[in-house]
């Protein structure tokens, strides 16, 4: 038996990996549910019910999907240009810090002016945070996987310092949290009385915008060309270094919007736990989406549903919520394997 490359895989074959990966992750989860003493069918039933079974559950899932769409887009745009941004977590916090600093009354502007200003400055912060590793990559050939990954830890410690020091809420009873945002700095709810905020709509707009950039603009063409074959892109006269830097700014900015949206839309103040690893989960989302911006929306909804549903399932069936983490991890691993398999076919000698 050996593998033979397939020159021109069909569309169905190219769309197969996410399906296989998700099916595989359900299989792994079933085994684990059995070991934990649950009935797999009941477990999945409870997950689905917990994720979309009620209006409350559905809105919770959409809320949870919002930051994942942003980080998923951030990773997708970078990976497509072969810029391995593992630092969406830090970029998310960069946006969150800017929001927490500017939203607490420093600027007393009406919401229509204040919100866009904060959003843009948040993006700028996230963009600049990725610009450093990108410059190190283009100038000195430093591996951005290492620099962006390690920056996550450095930046989180910096946020921790801010929350214990200059940004600490004097009224916070000693908790490491920032003061509450003023009302003008809060993203309003889409429908009064429901928890879903405009950050979700912003995420959808971002996904469509990125899709248009990818397919319709010269920058999208250049980003794809540099990602596919930087040597040919350079020979053809494309400004390869410039394209990588622009990609970095776009990616960092998108990840920072996740932080802005969480602080301004959902939490109202900055704490060290606003992101349970959304930056890293964004990698899973982007891979499941095959780096397609609209696919990112679908993948983020799926991942959010698993997380939200697993919480409810755990409360009902006493099977640990870690099942959700395992499902995502196994989905990512199987995704990588499935992508490989769609490029080859198995031939029996």
């Amino acid at each position: 038996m050996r593998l033979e490359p397939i020159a021109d895989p069909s569309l169905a074959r190219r769309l197969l990996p996410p399906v296989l990966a998700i099916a595989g992750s359900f299989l792994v989860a079933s085994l684990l549910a059995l070991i934990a003493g649950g009935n797999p069918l009941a477990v999945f039933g409870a997950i689905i019910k917990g994720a979309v079974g009620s209006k409350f559950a559905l809105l919770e899932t959409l809320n949870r999907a919002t930051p994942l769409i942003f980080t998923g887009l951030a990773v997708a745009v970078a990976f497509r240009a072969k810029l391995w941004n593992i630092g969406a977590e830090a970029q998310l916090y960069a946006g969150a810090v800017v929001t927490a600093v500017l939203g607490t009354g420093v600027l007393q502007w009406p919401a229509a002016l204040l919100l866009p200003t904060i959003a843009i400055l948040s993006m700028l912060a996230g963009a600049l945070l990725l610009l450093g590793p990108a410059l190190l990559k283009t100038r000195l050939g430093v591996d951005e996987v290492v620099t962006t990954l390690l920056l996550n830890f450095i930046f989180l410690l910096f946020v921790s310092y801010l929350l214990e020091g200059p940004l600490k809420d004097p009224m916070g009873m000693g908790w490491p949290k920032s003061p509450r945002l003023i009302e003008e700095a809060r993203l309003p709810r889409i429908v009064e009385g429901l928890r879903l905020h405009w950050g979700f709509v912003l995420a959808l707009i971002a996904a469509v915008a990125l899709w248009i950039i990818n397919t319709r603009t010269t920058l999208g063409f250049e980003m794809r060309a540099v990602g596919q074959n930087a040597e040919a892109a350079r020979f053809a006269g494309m400004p390869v270094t410039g394209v990588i830097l622009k990609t970095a700014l776009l990616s960092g900015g998108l990840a920072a919007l996740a932080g802005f949206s969480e602080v301004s839309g959902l939490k109202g103040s900055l704490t060290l736990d606003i992101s349970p690893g959304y930056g890293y989960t964004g990698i899973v989302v982007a891979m499941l989406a095959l780096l397609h911006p609209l696919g990112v929306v679908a993948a983020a909804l799926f991942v959010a549903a698993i997380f939200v549903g697993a919480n409810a399932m755990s409360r009902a069936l006493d099977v640990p919520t870690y099942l959700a983490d395992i499902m995502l991890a196994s989905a990512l691993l199987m995704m990588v394997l499935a992508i490989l398999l769609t490029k080859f076919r198995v031939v029996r000698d």
Partner: protein
Amino acid sequence: MTGKAQAQTVLRLSHITKHFGALTANDDVSFELKRGEVIALLGENGAGKTTLMNILFGQYTADAGEVEVFGQTLPPGNPRAALDAGVGMVHQHFTLAGNLTVWENIVLGTQALGALRLDAKAAKAKIAALSKRFHLAVDPESKVGRLSVGERQRVEILKALYREARILILDEPTAVLTPQESDALFATLREAVGQGLSVVFISHKLHEVMAISDRTVVLRHGKLVAERATSETSREELAALMVDGEVSAPKIEAMPPGPALMRLAGVSTKGEGRAPGLHAVDLTLHAGQITGLAGVSGNGQKALSDLISGLANPVSGRFEIAGEPVTDWSPRRALARKIGRIPEDRHHTGTIADFDLTENAVLETYARDFARHGWMDWKGARAQAEGLIGTYDVRCPGPDTRIRLLSGGNMQKLILGRVLETAPRIILANQPVRGLDIGAVNYVHGRLAEAREKGAAVLLISEDLDEIMKLSDVIHVISEGRLSPGFARGTMRADELGQWMAGEGFAQPTEAAHAS
């Protein structure tokens, strides 16, 4: 020739068939090799010559058919069995360890596993004897990494002879040699068959086949289409058999050179790894002329090509285009100065494999011609691609086809079209026909000749001296980054150019050449 008819059959291939996916690489191929005979295996690139020999040597397993050596059927897919049966193969790409000496390379793999000690003295004596007997001059103590390509090939042949090979298979052995080195190789082969060895010589060069072989076997699209005693055939007949149809090479009519469009004066560039840079190169490209650059591979062709395409900058010297000095040089500037570039590696430099034809067609011009305020004009780009497909006869399902699915010839036609559509003043054609079938070769050559007539200055870089001599108005030879003076068409014979290719005739090498 007498007695050959009765000579013993040493190798018999029977009904060899091999498929790669939908491609049939070998289709029911059978022939025999006699003792003391040289068979030329002739065919175009992609005709299935190398596949056939890899099956014989056990590197591939045939789908059908068998290989018999000295009357014994070889087990399929077992190179060791082929070696033991007395088959020695010299590949196109050598398989030597550069950090070991010549004699170490030769004995490598011949010692029994677990042998504690190497009888170096006996091994070296045997190598010395073989080297003398077959005129394969090479110092057994020097490191292979320091040897020239020609010397390395001798080591490969010695390696086969050391293992008592009775059948030698040489895959395109002259591709990397100067004409003089080729002659030396032929002398060795004659010596070898004189002593009872047999040789299979793979080539697509007709004059070599005529010079060295007793019999010629012609492959076309995987099929054996003819077998001829070489003394009873002609170059013309073989050419026709090889390509199945009329061969019309373009005619280059003499015409007076136009003004100088590009001038290099004393230009030097940095080398890259093992590849040398340029050393004080003087070169002028005139309108309406094809300037040929001959040379053995790896002697600075890449440095010159990188400089003209905009990938590299001169370190010193003067570089002028249309009389103006060049500053701040880049691929984009090169395109803006109307330089069309056909890169050496069409798969990795010239195109993006997973992009479709439309995207590849506008790779160099999208920013100027197919975009407005940062928005792509895909409709225009697609129309451009359709135009190129029609005008340059690119055979493909359509402009949405990913370019990796095209054959090399069609890929090259698209690149050629992309270049010529911009009406370039200067055309850099680096190995424009390597790996193409003869139809595509003539097409590309014809288009280059046409561009010349329209007044473009063409620089043709090739390792194929025939191609250079056929097309060029002026020929320069490059060796270790130095450039010979220009020789006008018809003033030099191939062997004279060969001496320059071997590095003779140049002024004393510069300090820089020694330092590197």
